[in-house]
């Protein structure tokens, strides 16, 4: 048992309530403390990324050891895939919190902001490291309820409307998830993910099983904003304060949506061909429709929010292709490649979409508008923002030296090798449309003539915001290293191994 695992939940949870008490009496405490604890969490998560490799760490909360190999306590599990997602959460969380030091001065009640931010991080970390399906639900509620409050943080008309919509659909999703968990518990008499797999291996009712799968897929699909469930995302992600948009779009939809879908459908349920076809179809739909919805937007943050749907489509589609090949039991190396592409794109998307939202926040901070038609010529006034946003735009559209190119390349190669030529072609076409829409963003925001001629009043943003954006753009470049052999084996392969072998996860946990 590694005693460091529960720190991912304990530190931000304690931090949130300390900020609420001490932040009342000590000014400036909240911002530095939040950044500090998230920085320490990022360090711990990097430590886990390097020691996890082939191992799988299990932590039994309260010290309840299993009896006759039946787990009775709450399990926290740290494997290769978890380590990657925890790393994303805490690193992007730290950079967003550091960025907020300057940005959040525009709002009142900073204490509440940082407390909710820490709670959201605690919830997401909890979802990711939990090995118990009911605790996934509990932590998911912690993180999404904080995010409802954070979306409405501006308390203007638009923010409240977006938050309300998000709450209604989020509540529906939570209902579906809880319903699904109830059905699982009824049949299997256990909540541990590894144990549920074992309970189903003795045979099960096909219809019942399918019903539970559909409930959980639609519940977590709503959280992940896959296309038929995406209605809340553009409003919620564009109305939140920018560092929160970066967290929601860059991290939250992955940690509580995509991650859980992948974890449950690979490691808890048996992979069936029907479900994999469904998941691939949903992914492809998200990818194609998302980008067409995005290209007509003039509000920067709405444009970025629609692109999140589209880019998540790539991840879901690629993982779906992997599932389909595993379910047929043929060509496992192609399945591994497809899953690698999906996870790689998930990591990359966190970096560049986080950066793009921080850029949008910087533009809004300096010019006071989010409408592309009202800005222009910012390249001279804000050189760093311009350069970093160029990096991020090229990454998301898949231009060679940047990370997005490699992950999209792997996805397309995997689709071709699996003989899904149509999906490969669609992925390439969507990438081109993405490029078009980001060239529009670049041109209107940074290189056009300023329509209002207010150039002199616009200044570059303060240091904390610049620092976060520069670090993220460096990360965007460095992440392309993950495609190269050596680094890929060290970081991506453990995650793929745990997903590729369906019984490995449960057999390892039950054995501990």
């Amino acid at each position, binding site marked *: *048992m590694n*005693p460091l695992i*529960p720190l991912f939940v*304990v530190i931000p*949870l*304690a931090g949130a*309530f*300390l900020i*609420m*008490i001490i932040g*009342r009496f000590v000014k400036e405490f909240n911002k530095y403390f939040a950044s500090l604890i998230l920085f320490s969490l990022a360090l711990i998560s990097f430590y886990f990324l390097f020691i996890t490799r082939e191992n799988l760490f299990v932590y*039994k*909360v*309260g*010290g309840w050891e299993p009896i006759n190999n039946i787990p009775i306590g709450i399990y926290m599990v740290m494997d290769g895939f978890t380590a990657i997602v925890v790393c994303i959460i805490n690193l992007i969380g730290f950079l967003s919190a550091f960025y907020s030091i300057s940005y959040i001065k525009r709002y009142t009640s900073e204490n509440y902001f940082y407390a909710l931010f820490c709670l959201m991080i605690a919830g997401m970390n909890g979802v990711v490291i939990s090995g118990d399906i009911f605790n996934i639900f509990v932590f998911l509620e912690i993180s999404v309820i904080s995010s409802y409050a954070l979306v409405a943080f501006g308390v203007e008309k638009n923010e409240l409307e977006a938050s309300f919509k998000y709450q209604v659909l989020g509540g529906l999703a939570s209902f579906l998830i809880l319903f699904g968990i109830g059905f699982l518990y009824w049949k299997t008499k256990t909540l541990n993910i590894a144990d549920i797999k074992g309970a189903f291996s003795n045979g099960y009712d096909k219809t019942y099983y399918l019903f539970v799968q559909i409930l959980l897929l639609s519940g977590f699909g709503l959280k992940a904003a896959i296309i038929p469930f995406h209605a809340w995302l553009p409003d919620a992600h564009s109305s939140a304060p920018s560092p929160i948009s970066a967290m929601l779009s860059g991290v939250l939809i992955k940690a509580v949506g995509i991650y859980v879908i992948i974890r449950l459908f690979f490691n808890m349920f048996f992979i069936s061909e029907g479900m994999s076809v469904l998941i691939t179809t949903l992914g492809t739909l998200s990818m194609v429709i998302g980008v067409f919805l995005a290209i007509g937007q003039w509000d920067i943050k709405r444009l970025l929010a629609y692109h999140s749907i589209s880019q998540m489509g790539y991840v879901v589609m690629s993982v779906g292709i992997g599932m389909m090949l595993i379910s047929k039991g043929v060509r496992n190396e192609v399945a591994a490649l497809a899953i690698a592409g999906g996870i790689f794109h998930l990591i990359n998307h966190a970096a560049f979409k986080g950066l793009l939202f921080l850029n949008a926040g910087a533009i809004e901070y300096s010019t006071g508008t989010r409408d592309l038609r009202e800005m222009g010529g910012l390249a001279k006034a804000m050189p760093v923002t311009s350069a970093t946003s160029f990096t991020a735009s090229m990454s998301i559209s898949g231009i060679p030296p940047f990370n997005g190119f490699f992950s999209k390349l792997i996805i397309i190669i995997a689709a071709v090798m699996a003989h899904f030529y149509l999906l490969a072609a669609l992925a390439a076409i969507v990438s081109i449309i993405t490029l078009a829409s980001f060239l529009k963003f670049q041109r209107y925001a940074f290189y056009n003539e300023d329509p209002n001629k207010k150039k002199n009043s616009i200044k570059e943003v303060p240091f904390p915001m610049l620092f976060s954006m520069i670090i993220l753009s460096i990360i965007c470049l460095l992440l392309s290293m993950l495609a190269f052999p050596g680094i890929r084996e060290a970081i991506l392969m453990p995650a793929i191994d745990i997903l590729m072998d369906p019984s490995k996860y449960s057999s390892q946990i039950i054995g501990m």
Partner: protein
Amino acid sequence: MKGMTLIVKKTTQLIAGMIFMYGIYVIVHGHLTPGGGFAGGVIIAGSLILVTLAYGGEFLKLVKEEAGTTIIESMATIMIIMIATAGFLFGTKIFFNNFLPKGVVGQLVSAGVLPLYNIFVGTEVAASIFIIFLSLIIFKEESPQ
């Protein structure tokens, strides 16, 4: 907010204390009987809400009260985390470890750290439900008629 009539005030005087005591009873017997931190906390919050409704209060006083209750709530949560961490530090490196002596089953002081958790969960729940109530009143007082 205005208070209510003399009859309501007098009745509240008589029963609010008893409700409060009953809440404490439910909390401290949480490990022995049905109920516990959450149920008892709700009962305590009920008595506080009853007093506030019957006697009313100045707007500024309510705001001040809300600020104080927020601190109590956060303190209770931090205490829960600290007890959990104490389990980590004393001995086996396990959070939520029951590190105190277990005692005899059925006695009031038994079951190790469970009564402590119940007390702080009760404080937390009472404070947070009272905060929700106060926030609603403050919102109503603030908004124009």
